[in-house]
C-alpha cells in the first residue's frame, strides 16, 4: 500500500480520489446520506420520542380517573376525603352489595366487570384479615392493559400510601418518640459518576446506530462509484485515463471509505451531543444525574474504529457493486451487504457484554464492541489489537478479491450479466469460457 501511495500511482490515486469526492459532495443523495442523516437522525428521533411520550403522558394526566371505594372501614373515612381532594379523581358509587361490606369476591364480580367494560377505571376494596380483629387488607383493582385504568390504579395507590404513612406515623407517635424512628433512615448511594452513567447508556445505544450509519454512508457512494459510472456513461471515460486499473479501484475505494467514515464520525458526534443536550436534562430530575461525554483520550480509538468499519464495509460493498450496471442492480447487490453488516450488532444490546478475543475475531461486531468499550472509557488492549488486525486482514482480502474480479474484462466493461454468485459459478466451470482478463 505504501508503495502504491508513493510516486506516480499515489499522484493518480490522489487526483482521482479528490475528483470523486468533489463530485460526490455536489450530489444531493450523498450529502443527505453522509452528512444530513447522521447529523439529524438523533435530534429528530429524540424530539419525536420525547414529544410522543409527553403527549401521551399529558393526555393521560388530563384524564379524570373514575374510581369506586367499597367496604371502607369506618375509622378510615379520611381516605374518602383525601380522594375527594384530588382533582383528577372522581368517586363513583360502588355496587350495593360491595358498599354494604361484601367480601372481595363480590367486589370482584361487580367492580371487575365494570372496569373491564370501561365504565370504571379502578376500585379500592377492603378485606378483613383473619389474624386479628380490626386488621384489613386494602386492594386496588385495575386493568393494566388499559392506559386510563392503569393511571387510575396508580393515583389510588399514591393517595392510599400517603394516607397509610400518615396513619402509621400517628400510631407510632403514640408508642415511641419520633426521634427514635428517625434514627433509621433509608438512602441510596450510586458509585457511578454522571459521565459513567452516560457512557453506559451511550454504549448500549451507540454501536448499532454507528454501524448502520457507516453502512448507510458507504452504500450510496459504493453504487455511485461503480454502477453509477455505467449509468452515466462515464465508465469508459475513466478507463481511457492513463491511470492503472488498480489506482482507479483504490481511489474509488478510498472515496467510499471516506464517506462511510464521515457518516460514522458525524453520527457519533451528533448522538453524543443530542443525548447530552436533550436526554440528560430530562433525566436530571431523577436520583442519578447523567452526563454524555466521550473521554478525549479515547477519541483516536473511536476514529480508528470508524475508519476500520468504513474500510471493511466499503470493501465488501465495492466487491459486489462492481458487478452492477445500473443503480437498481447496484442497490439490489449492495443491500444484502448492508443488512449483513449490522444484523449481528442487534444482539449486542445486552448490558455487561465485553470485547473478548472471541468477539474480536467477528468482523463488524468487533468494531462495534470496541466502540462500546471506548465510549465506556475502558480499552482492553489485547482484544482491541486483535480487532484492528482482523479488520485490516479482512479489508486486504476483500480488496484483493475485488481487484481480481475487476481484471475480468466483461466485469470491467460492464458486459457481464449477473452478480457475484453467477460470476463464481461461471468461472469455476472450467473451460466454459475463455479467459478474459485485462492488464492491471
Amino acid at each position, binding site marked *: 500500500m505504501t508503495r502504491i501511495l508513493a510516486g506516480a500511482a499515489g499522484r493518480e490515486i490522489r487526483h482521482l480520489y479528490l475528483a470523486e469526492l468533489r463530485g460526490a459532495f455536489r450530489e444531493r443523495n450523498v450529502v443527505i446520506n453522509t452528512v444530513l442523516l447522521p447529523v439529524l437522525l438523533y435530534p429528530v428521533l429524540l424530539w419525536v420520542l420525547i414529544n410522543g411520550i409527553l403527549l401521551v403522558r399529558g393526555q393521560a394526566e388530563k384524564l379524570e380517573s373514575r374510581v369506586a371505594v367499597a367496604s371502607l372501614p369506618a375509622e378510615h373515612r379520611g381516605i374518602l376525603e383525601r380522594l375527594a381532594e384530588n382533582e383528577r379523581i372522581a368517586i363513583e358509587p360502588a355496587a350495593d352489595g360491595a358498599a354494604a361490606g361484601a367480601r372481595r369476591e363480590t367486589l370482584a364480580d361487580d367492580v371487575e366487570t365494570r372496569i373491564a367494560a370501561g365504565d370504571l377505571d379502578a376500585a379500592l376494596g377492603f378485606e378483613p384479615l383473619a389474624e386479628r380483629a380490626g386488621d384489613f387488607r386494602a386492594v386496588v383493582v385495575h386493568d393494566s392493559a388499559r392506559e386510563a385504568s392503569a393511571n387510575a390504579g396508580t393515583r389510588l395507590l399514591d393517595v392510599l400510601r400517603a394516607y397509610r404513612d400518615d396513619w402509621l406515623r400517628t400510631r407510632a407517635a403514640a408508642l415511641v418518640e419520633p426521634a427514635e424512628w428517625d434514627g433509621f433512615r433509608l438512602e441510596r448511594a450510586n458509585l457511578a459518576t454522571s459521565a459513567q452513567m452516560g457512557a453506559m447508556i451511550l454504549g448500549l445505544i451507540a454501536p448499532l446506530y454507528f454501524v448502520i450509519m457507516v453502512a448507510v454512508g458507504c452504500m450510496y457512494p459504493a453504487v455511485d462509484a461503480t454502477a453509477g459510472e455505467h449509468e452515466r456513461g462515464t465508465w469508459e471515460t475513466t478507463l481511457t485515463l492513463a*491511470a492503472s486499473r488498480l489506482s482507479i479501484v483504490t481511489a474509488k475505494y478510498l472515496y467510499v471509505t471516506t464517506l462511510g467514515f464521515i457518516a460514522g464520525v458525524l453520527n457519533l458526534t451528533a448522538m453524543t451531543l443530542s443525548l447530552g443536550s436533550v436526554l440528560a436534562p430530562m433525566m436530571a430530575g431523577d436520583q442519578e444525574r447523567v452526563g454524555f461525554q466521550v473521554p478525549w483520550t479515547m477519541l483516536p480509538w473511536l476514529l480508528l474504529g470508524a475508519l476500520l468499519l468504513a474500510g471493511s464495509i466499503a470493501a465488501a460493498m465495492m466487491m459486489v457493486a462492481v458487478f452492477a450496471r445500473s443503480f437498481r442492480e447496484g442497490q439490489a447487490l449492495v443491500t444484502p451487504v448492508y443488512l449483513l453488516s449490522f444484523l449481528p450488532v442487534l444482539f449486542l444490546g445486552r448490558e455487561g457484554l465485553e470485547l473478548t478475543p472471541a468477539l474480536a475475531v467477528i468482523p463488524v461486531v468487533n468494531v462495534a464492541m470496541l466502540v462500546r468499550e471506548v465510549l465506556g472509557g475502558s480499552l482492553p488492549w489485547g482484544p482491541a489489537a486483535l480487532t484492528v488486525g482482523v479488520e485490516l486482514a479482512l479489508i486486504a482480502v476483500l480488496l484483493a478479491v475485488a481487484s481480481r474480479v475487476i481484471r475480468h474484462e466483461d466485469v470491467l466493461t460492464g458486459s457481464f450479466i449477473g452478480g457475484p454468485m453467477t460470476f463464481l459459478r461461471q468461472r469455476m466451470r472450467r473451460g466454459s469460457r475463455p479467459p478474459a482478463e485485462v492488464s492491471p
Partner: protein
Amino acid sequence: MSEAPVRTAGLSKSFWEASRGRIDAVADVTFSCRPGEIFGFLGANGAGKTTTLRMLATILSPTAGDAWIYDHSVLREPQEVRRCLGFYSASTALYPRLTAAETLELFARINGLPEPRVRARRDELIARFGIGKYADARIEKLSTGMKQKVSIARTIAHDPPVLVFDEPTVGLDVLNAIELQKVIAELRSEGKTILFSTHIMSEAERLCDRIAIIHQGRIHACDSLEGLRARTGLHYLEDIFVRIVGEADALHAEAV
C-alpha cells in the same frame, strides 16, 4: 524504433456469448498509420471498428496479436499507451458533477501533463473552444454543443500525439457535426495522428487521408481515396464500399 505512430499486427478480439458461443469481433487486423494523417475506419454497424479502436485505447485487451502506439505495446504498457492517446467516442461521457475547468485539469494531470503546465493548458483549451463563460459551470448544466466542445478539449487536454475519434458525429446535428469535423482537420494540421471511425461516407471522403474498409472484423481494403478508386474503377466512396464489402461476402460464402 518504428516511424509509425500507430501499428497493429494480427490484432484479434473474440467474445463469448452463452447463446452464440465464440464471436470473432476483430480478426487478424494489421495496419500502420503515418505521422500526421487521418486514418479512417469505414464500416457498417458491428463491423469491428469500435472494438479495434477500443483495443488501441486499451479499454479492451486483444485475444491475439498486438498493437503499438509509439512503440508502446497495448498489452504490456497500457498506461504509456493511454498517455500518448486521446480517446473520443459517443460513449465516453463527461463527469456531470465536475465543471468544465475541473474536467480539463483532471484529464491533463492524470494523463501525464507536467503539473506546472496544467493550468496554462486548461486556460488555452478554454480559450480555443470558447467555453470561458461556462468553464466553472457543472457539465450537467451545459448544452449538448457545449458538452461536445468540452469533450474534445478533454481528449486533447494532455496534448497527445495520437487521437482516436470513434464515430464522433453520432447523435450530433449537422452544424455540430461540421464544427467537429473542422476541429479534427485542425488537429491534423497541428501534426496529430488521427484514427477516425465512421459509417458516413461523406465524412470519410472529406476527412481521411487513408481509409480502411472493415467488414466482419477484417480489413478488406486500405488505401487513399484515389487508391481505392483506382483499385475498383469506381468514383464514389459509397459504390467503392459496396463493391468491396460485396466481394468480401462472396469470398466468405465460397469459403463456407
